[in-house]
């Protein structure tokens, strides 16, 4: 099948972080990738590189990826120092090579953050995010307990706000972009998603305490509102949610028993 573009191709020079294992030293290796189509996704360009490496008897570059449609959150690398690359609100898999020019040199590195140790090449361990959710990022409703779905009307604006926050794909770009390696945007998105819904009220304050404490335990830095996370977020999640989280955390910390009892009153 013919390409839909004009048929012209580009030559790209890649400088890719190679690291054999968690404790092995890493280094940037340079590769030449000729004949890159502008219609390729960034990951398809890495596929082409990997096919060439394998054919030459070398080990392919390891990188996480799965859905390749911007929703699973598996992929994500620093591209010329920017999380997910130059296009705003775009995951690495949805970034296309037409965002680059013929002859460009592109540096590709893994997320850099202490709580995200490198496993190999561009693959990092983001299990800290799962543990933050496990600390309280849910509504404790066991299967079978639910009332009729329309029993509690929810204003459309609240549902929309919850959805804005709930769109987070857990890719980790916010952490990678933050000078403090803070996980505040990730955590706040979940606190806000559940915190604006009536179903989330009973556990609202205990949730924010436990999740925020888990962030510290994992070694993420503090939020000093640089705002880099919002810029890097492929789902454009707003740092307003962090303000909300901080407010809930404050109330939960100063008056834990009252806060627990007066859920929803603030």
């Amino acid at each position: 099948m013919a390409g839909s573009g004009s048929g012209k191709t580009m030559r790209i020079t890649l400088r890719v972080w190679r690291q054999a294992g968690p404790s092995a030293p890493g280094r940037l290796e340079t590769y030449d990738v000729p004949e890159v189509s502008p219609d390729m996704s960034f990951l398809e360009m890495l596929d082409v590189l990997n096919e060439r490496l394998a054919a030459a008897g070398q080990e392919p570059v390891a990188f996480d990826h799965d859905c390749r449609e911007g929703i699973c959150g598996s992929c994500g690398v620093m591209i010329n120092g920017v999380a997910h690359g130059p296009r705003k609100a775009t995951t690495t898999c949805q970034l296309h090579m037409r965002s680059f020019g013929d002859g460009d040199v592109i540096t590709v590195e893994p997320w850099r953050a202490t709580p995200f140790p490198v496993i190999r090449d561009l693959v990092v361990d983001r299990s800290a995010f799962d543990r933050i959710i496990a600390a309280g990022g849910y509504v404790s409703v066991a299967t079978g307990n639910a009332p009729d779905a329309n029993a509690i009307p929810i204003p459309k604006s609240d549902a929309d706000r919850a959805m804005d926050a709930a769109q987070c794909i857990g890719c980790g770009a916010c952490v990678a972009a933050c000078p403090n390696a803070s996980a505040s945007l990730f955590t706040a998105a979940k606190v806000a998603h559940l915190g604006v819904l009536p179903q989330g009220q009973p556990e609202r304050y205990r949730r924010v305490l436990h999740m925020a404490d888990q962030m510290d335990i994992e070694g993420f830095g503090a939020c000093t509102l640089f705002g880099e996370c919002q810029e890097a977020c492929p789902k454009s999640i707003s740092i307003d949610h962090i303000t909300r989280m901080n407010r809930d955390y404050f109330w939960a910390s100063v008056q834990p028993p009252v806060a627990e009892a007066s859920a929803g009153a603030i």
Partner: protein
Amino acid sequence: MDLNARIPSGPLDQKWDRHRFELKLVNPANKRKHRVIVVGTGLAGASAAASLAELGYRVSCFCFQDSPRRAHSIAAQGGINAAKNYQNDGDSVWRLFYDTIKGGDFRAREANVYRLAQLSVRIIDQCVAQGVPFAREYGGLLANRSFGGAQVSRTFYARGQTGQQLLLGAYQALEKEIRRGGVTMHPRTEMLDLVVVDGRARGIVARDLVTGAITSHVADAVVLATGGYGNVFYLSTNAKGSNVTATWRAHRRGAAFANPCFTQIHPTCIPQSGDYQSKLTLMSESLRNDGRVWVPKRPGDTRRPEEIPEDERDYYLERKYPSFGNLAPRDIASRAAKEVCDEGRGVGPGGLGVYLDFAAAIGRLGEKTIAERYGNLFEMYQRITDENPYRTPMRIYPAVHYTMGGLWVDYNLMSTIPGLHVLGEANFSDHGANRLGASALMQGLADGYFIIPVTIGDYLATQPLAPVGTDHPEFRRAEDEVRARIGSLMAGKGRRTADSFHRELGRIMWEECGMARRAEGLREAIGRIAALREEFWRDINVPGSADTLNQALEKAGRVADFLELGELMCRDALQREESCGGHFRVEHQTPDGEARRDDARFCHVSAWEWVGEGQPQRLHQEPLVFENVQLATRSYK
């Protein structure tokens, strides 16, 4: 082979209630004595693992991704059906049941599908209670939209990310149970074999994808929720990691594989743009609510779409299927697209595309409303194609999306291996020969939240299970076989990558076992796949080591299994000498090109039994009995 579906007796609408009463229970204090393995953390797996742990079972849960939240259910866009009848438009459990049976072209079990429709209403309740932010009306109540194959609005949705929101609900429930200690989670761990002891599923052998360690895991029951096998076509809308290995390995251990040729080709995907293409991207079926599908009337018309006047356009779905129009079911819409492209009226590169046009809807409702409904889909389209669908029609083409076939299960979702249960897309049970839109999410969650927690108890309560350990000879044997297989993949000093074999297999499957199948092509494909498989083992090259993260090795193992499955799919398609749903045999069509079923000969499930290496699987049949609906020729005209 025992293919007794164990359908409960009694009237259709009482079967599930009666069955639940008749099932044996495990008392609460005894539940913690049972370990259950759940493989896969999509909607079916995550909901099952969480629900089983809530009941008190000890659960070990596995996924190959780095987090359970990344399973491919996350990518489902459009919505989830439920017979709530909130819209007062005549919906009911019976109608959802009937639409699903008819949509599946009468190749699914009545009792399973009825139960699915019954449970649909509780799924929505459960998800709302978890905080799933479904779309709402200004009055605060839940919104609905319509989907293909239905004339009522029963689809619940969260923008174009319904699968994501439902999966996050199930994932959060799972994380809650992980924290509580009810579930032990094994991410980045891939099941490579099933272990059967004394005829019962007792565990799995898995590979730690980071360290390469091969480990055994023992349980009293095993639940596979590992998704479908659409990636046998190489290009599909599935995630790159989606694979058949877990179910295929179980098949080789004795689980019958049912209706493998029943695959769904989704009509609205972004056309391929080049040979380097790694996957195809779906554009949600919900777009067909407001988009009109057309091609130029004249073959070879190269004008831009905006330059083609109304009377020179063929809105072929509206023309051929006036009562359903652009909302004709997926199999019918896909075949119609192929037909007009075969006539030389396709658009875009290679003529493999049709227009999905929103101009009329934008004119009627305004750009703002359309953006609210589909904004994220339009953005995704523009990002991939560099074209603005608010200004120019989308180009779409069918792509492999879902597999209705899968491991055979009875009414309790148990396979032909006692103790091995199969949920969600991995089983074959509810969608017949074609799945309706917004029904996959419904089935995955019905299986995981509401069916398996009940039926697995009956199995555990009635089976005397001798204690076994990982030192049991069957575990040792399975581990040895897994190591040997990895050894042969690594030992290959060939020249070709797994991807190159996968692409070649995909081309054969798409050409011969895709939207139109004919006997001669299928016979040829069987030979070509067998030859390709031989070449694979002769000429595969897997770089690196088996003791580290090695994505090439993971890929090679999965492709090896696809190379076996592909042949079985072609054989299944060859023996089913009728057209039904997504299975279209060119030899069996009506004069106006519609599918022609043969109920006298093929009103049954085809279930294939593995009989040994190098031998063709043996075919068994489970007759399908229709007591409540009349077998009719499906018509959407």
